[in-house]
Every structure is written in structure tokens, then in C-alpha cells.
């Protein structure tokens, strides 16, 4: 019989409209930034979690709106004479709103999936907990909204909750930010998950567990507050909330850096079947075709013009640019790929080729990230056999000058200097690469 009542509530309460509003609002937020998540599953799920900034307060407001029905309809006296206990009576209402929230959240994901399915190759299993915890959080929000709305059933409550929740979620991380940078365990209590910067990580299981425990506790507290008749029982609702917070904080990873862990399956290299091998990380497998041409061409150019040329292309999961100062491998040509909305490489093939040959086939290191780029560009120009393209910050045409000067030297000397530049850049040392090109040796 409760199933029948649940069906009636699904049809006649605000559940249906709330689900639709959630999907529409969610899609309206996802698609302006489709370039950031297009073609890949995990970024879609993580962006959706970040948008809980807006969805969570809206769910609160939706719950409060639904809770107004009892007082607007003035059914208190009529229902007061019925035997069924309050918690059984309100369970279908809460259940209908919960179903609506899950449907809306998954619908929003499906709306985004339309842009991911055609091109994505890699489906991370870590996706499922991310989406599931997100759905659980909006369910907890709507039940909490029902509880607060029952307590204060005025017309001002839904907007106050929505707006208050929004302001709270936006300012909460700011407060923690100024307190220092070692509090993020508590930050996990916010349903919003901070989006990691690259595609090669997944969220740690302990972070998921902590959030699940907290959200389940919040859900229980909210339902208890909503369904209880006496004030004493309602006050007891604080107990599961506090307990849940304590347990969640105990389980949560200690520092913000521990929230994300390397996703080994995403980093596994996927390679072309023909030689020379061009490989990308599994998560970017859809860009392999785009990389194949420039990659093989770069290898050919390097093999023709330099000694000890690399024999394969591989995508580097750790961004050497930001993280690493170790020497780079000499036998492999590394590439940092940027992906566009349809899963392919963001850069056109010609630009990719220039990028691959930059610094004679080396990547910028963390300790020299902004240095020596004219020399690197000149080396790439020498390999390409073309003048270096004009760049925005190229005041005085330094790269062009270096390339011209290089061109004046005998062919053997050119080759030796570019090879020396490559060796120095591979070592990630703070060698003056321009000096290598002009003077032919590395000044100490």
C-alpha cells in the first residue's frame, strides 16, 4: 500500500517538476564549459560535483517548498485524527522527493553524457562513486529542506534556504582558505568536491567513504527531524548528525593533496600499432589519431637531424611543467596533450608538431618553466627548417635572431649545438640554452 501512496506522491507532489528543473538547470551550467569536460567521463562527473554549489541549495529550497504543502492545505486537523504515525505518513513524501532528486541528478549526468559518449574510450570505474555520492548529497539536501520547511512553513523559507545555502557554500571555503591550508578534512563535509586539475587522478576511496558516512548521517538526522512529532525526539536528530561528522572526519584523508590519488588505469599507455610507436594515456585514447601524424613526423625529423634521437612518443601523465625537475628520458619524446570538447587534441596538427619539436624535443621543466623559450623555439625552427613563428611575447624577435645566427654556422656546428641544447634541456638543469646556441658550450 505504501508503494501506491509513493506512486501518488510522485505524480501529485512537486517531485516531477523538481526533477525537470534540476536537469534543465544542470545542463544550463554544464554546457557553457563543455570544453573543459567534453569527451571524457571523469571530468564530467567532477564538474557536476562542483556544480553542487548551486544544486545543493536549490535542493534545500525544493524540500522546503514541498514541506509547505501540509500547512498550505491546512490538513493538520484532519490528519491529526488518523492512526498512522507521522513518520509513516511522511515517508512517501520524502521518498518521492528523494527519487526526484536522484532522477534529476542522473538526468543531468545523462545530458552531459550526450557530449561524452561519441568519443570517449576510457570508462573509469572511479566514476560510479563520484556520481553516486553526488546523488546522495542532493537527496540529503532535499530531506533537510523538508525538515526545515516543516519547522518554518512560510513563503520566505524556500528562497531563504536556497540563497542561504548558496552563500554558505561559496564563503565556507574562503573561510578555511584564510585559516591556513591544512583543514581540508573538514572541507569534505561540504558536498562539493573540488575538481582536480588533470585527467590522470581519481578520488581516493577514503574521501568517498567519509562523505558517504557524513551524508547518510545528515539524511538520517533530517528525516528524524522531519518525521518526529515531539520536540524531544526532534532534538535527538542532532545526535546522528554529530556522530556522522565525527566519524567522517576520522575517516577522511588528512590533507587536501590526499583526496585525489593517481588513476593507474587512466595512465596506462595506449599505442599505435605501426612503428614508430606513438602512445597516449588511456584516458586520452580518443586523441591518439590526432597525435599520430605529428608524432611520427617529429620522430622522423629528430632521427634525421640529431644523434641519439628518441624512438617513440609517449604522453606524460605528470606535468613536468608544474611538478618535476628530474631529468627527462632521452629515448622517448614526451608530449603534454590538451583535449578539446570532442575528445581530440585541442591543438591543430601543425601546432602539435611545433610543440613536439620545441627545445629539440624536450619539455619545459618546473625549475626553468619560463626561461629560455626563445632558444627552444629557435631549436624547433632549425629542426623544422622554417623561420620560427611570431609569438606574442617575442619582443625584439629573439627567437628569429637566434635562428638566423644558427643558420650562419656550418652544418656540423649547427647540429652539434642543437644536440647540446637537447642534452642540457633533457637534464632540466638551469643551463642558459641561448648561450648553448650562440657560444656552443654551456657556461657555468
Amino acid at each position, binding site marked *: 500500500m505504501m508503494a501506491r501512496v509513493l506512486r501518488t506522491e510522485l505524480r501529485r507532489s512537486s517531485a516531477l517538476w523538481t526533477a525537470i*528543473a534540476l536537469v534543465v*538547470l544542470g545542463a*544550463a*551550467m554544464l554546457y*557553457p*564549459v563543455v570544453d573543459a569536460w567534453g569527451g571524457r567521463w571523469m571530468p564530467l562527473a567532477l564538474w557536476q560535483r562542483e*556544480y553542487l*554549489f*548551486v544544486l545543493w*541549495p*536549490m535542493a534545500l*529550497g525544493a524540500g522546503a*517548498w514541498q514541506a*509547505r504543502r501540509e500547512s498550505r492545505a491546512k490538513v493538520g486537523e484532519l490528519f491529526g485524527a488518523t492512526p498512522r504515525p507521522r513518520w509513516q505518513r511522511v515517508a512517501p513524501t520524502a521518498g518521492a522527493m528523494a527519487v526526484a532528486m536522484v532522477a534529476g541528478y542522473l538526468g543531468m549526468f545523462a545530458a552531459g553524457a550526450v557530449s561524452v559518449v561519441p568519443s570517449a574510450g576510457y570508462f573509469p570505474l572511479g566514476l560510479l562513486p563520484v556520481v553516486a555520492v553526488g546523488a546522495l548529497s542532493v537527496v540529503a539536501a532535499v530531506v533537510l529542506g523538508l525538515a526545515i520547511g516543516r519547522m518554518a512553513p512560510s*513563503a*520566505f523559507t*524556500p*528562497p*531563504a534556504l*536556497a*540563497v542561504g545555502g*548558496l*552563500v554558505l557554500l*561559496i*564563503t565556507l571555503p574562503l573561510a578555511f582558505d584564510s585559516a591556513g591550508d591544512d583543514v581540508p578534512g573538514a572541507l569534505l563535509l561540504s558536498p562539493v568536491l573540488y575538481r582536480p586539475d588533470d585527467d590522470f587522478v581519481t578520488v581516493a576511496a577514503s574521501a568517498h567513504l567519509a562523505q558517504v558516512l557524513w551524508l547518510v548521517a545528515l539524511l538520517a538526522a533530517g528525516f528524524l527531524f522531519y518525521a518526529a512529532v515531539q520536540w524531544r525526539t526532534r532534538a535527538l536528530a542532532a545526535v546522528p548528525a554529530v556522530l556522522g561528522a565525527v566519524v567522517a572526519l576520522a575517516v577522511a584523508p588528512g590533507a587536501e593533496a590526499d583526496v585525489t590519488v593517481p588513476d593507474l588505469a587512466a595512465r596506462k599507455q595506449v599505442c599505435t600499432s605501426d612503428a614508430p610507436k606513438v602512445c597516449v594515456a588511456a584516458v586520452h585514447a580518443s586523441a591518439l589519431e590526432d597525435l599520430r601524424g605529428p608524432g611520427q613526423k617529429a620522430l622522423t625529423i629528430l632521427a634525421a637531424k640529431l644523434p641519439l634521437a628518441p624512438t617513440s612518443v609517449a604522453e606524460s601523465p605528470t606535468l613536468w611543467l608544474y611538478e618535476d625537475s628530474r631529468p627527462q628520458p632521452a629515448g622517448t619524446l614526451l608530449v603534454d596533450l590538451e583535449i578539446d570538447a570532442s575528445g581530440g587534441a585541442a591543438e591543430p596538427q601543425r601546432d602539435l608538431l611545433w610543440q613536439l619539436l620545441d627545445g629539440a624535443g624536450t619539455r619545459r621543466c618546473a625549475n626553468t618553466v619560463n626561461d629560455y623559450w626563445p632558444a627552444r623555439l629557435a631549436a624547433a625552427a632549425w629542426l623544422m627548417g622554417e623561420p620560427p613563428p611570431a609569438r606574442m611575447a617575442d619582443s625584439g624577435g629573439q627567437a628569429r635572431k637566434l635562428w638566423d645566427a644558427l643558420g650562419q654556422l656550418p652544418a656540423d656546428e649547427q647540429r652539434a649545438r642543437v644536440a647540446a641544447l637537447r642534452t642540457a634541456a633533457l637534464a632540466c638543469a638551469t643551463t642558459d640554452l641561448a648561450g648553448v646556441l650562440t657560444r656552443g658550450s654551456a657556461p657555468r
Partner: protein
Amino acid sequence: MRLLSLYLRSRRVPAALAAVLVSTVALWSIGLAGVDAKTRLVLAALAAAIGTAALAPGLVGADPALDRTAALSWPPRRAGHVLAMAAVVAGVLAATVLTGDPLATATVALRNAAGLAGLVALAAAALGAGLAWLPPVAWTAVVVMVGPQAGGYREALTWMVQPGGTASATVTALAVGAAGALAYAWRGSRS
């Protein structure tokens, strides 16, 4: 004067005004912490959205059917209500100038208040005063999350957080405001 005070009480305006003041002060004090211009615009947009949402329930009386039987002409009064709503929100926002640390310039305050008040009125005509808060709050929240965009229709769609001089933003705000005020003046709130 007595009639005006009765009208305001019947529409629960005093409580809403309190909410407008409290929320503007709260957001202004967040802005005191030396935030940059972009965040300041976000706070101003939020303040305008909260203010108009708080005044939204006052767009319908306790018994709309009874109101409709009144002898006096409602459309000019309803239009006046929307204008007053915009003026109050703009005024409270612009009053922060007096503190020396303004939450918004007069242009931004007027634009946001006019546009969002019109949007609230439009929503009241379409969805009823109880739900009228939803479009302005949702639109502002989405815009706050996505950030001000540049170029063409995207600039117009994110009009609330654009800087004061942006022409497309002002035009959008005025268009929405006028459409909303007209719709509400003509039809009144749905429920």
C-alpha cells in the same frame, strides 16, 4: 498614507524589507575583506537577487480572487509595486556608497535591481508569487558559478555580473525588467 501602510502590511513588506537590509549588510561585510572588482560584482548581483527574491512573496495578496473584485484599477498599481521594488533594492545597494566601501556603483545597482525585479515580476505572472524567487536566484547562481563571459549572446546572458558600462548587459536588464513589469501589471500574479 494609512492605505499605503495597510497595503504594505497586507503584502508582508516589512518583514521582506528587513530581509533585504540584513542580506545586503551581510554581503557588504563580506565585501569589506578587500575583494577584487570581479568578486564585488558577484556580491552585488547576489545582493540584488536576494533582495528581489525576498520581496517576491509580496507580489500577491492573501486572497487574489478578492483583490480582482476591487473597483480600483490594478495595472498601474501593480506596475508601481514593481518599480518600488526595484527602487528599494537599488537604493539599499547604492546606499553602501555612503559607507565609503560601496558594494556596487549606482549604475550596477540600478541595472541589477531593475532587471531582477522585472524578472521576479515576470516569474510571478507565470509561476505564482510563491515560486517567483526561483528564476532570479537560479539564473544569478548559474551566472555566479560560470563567471562573466565575453562576446555576443554570452555577455548578455551573464548580465548581472558584467561591469557597469557593458552595453549588452544594460540592454538585457532593461528588456527583462520592462517585459516583467508589463506582464505583471497586465496579468497580476498567478496565484
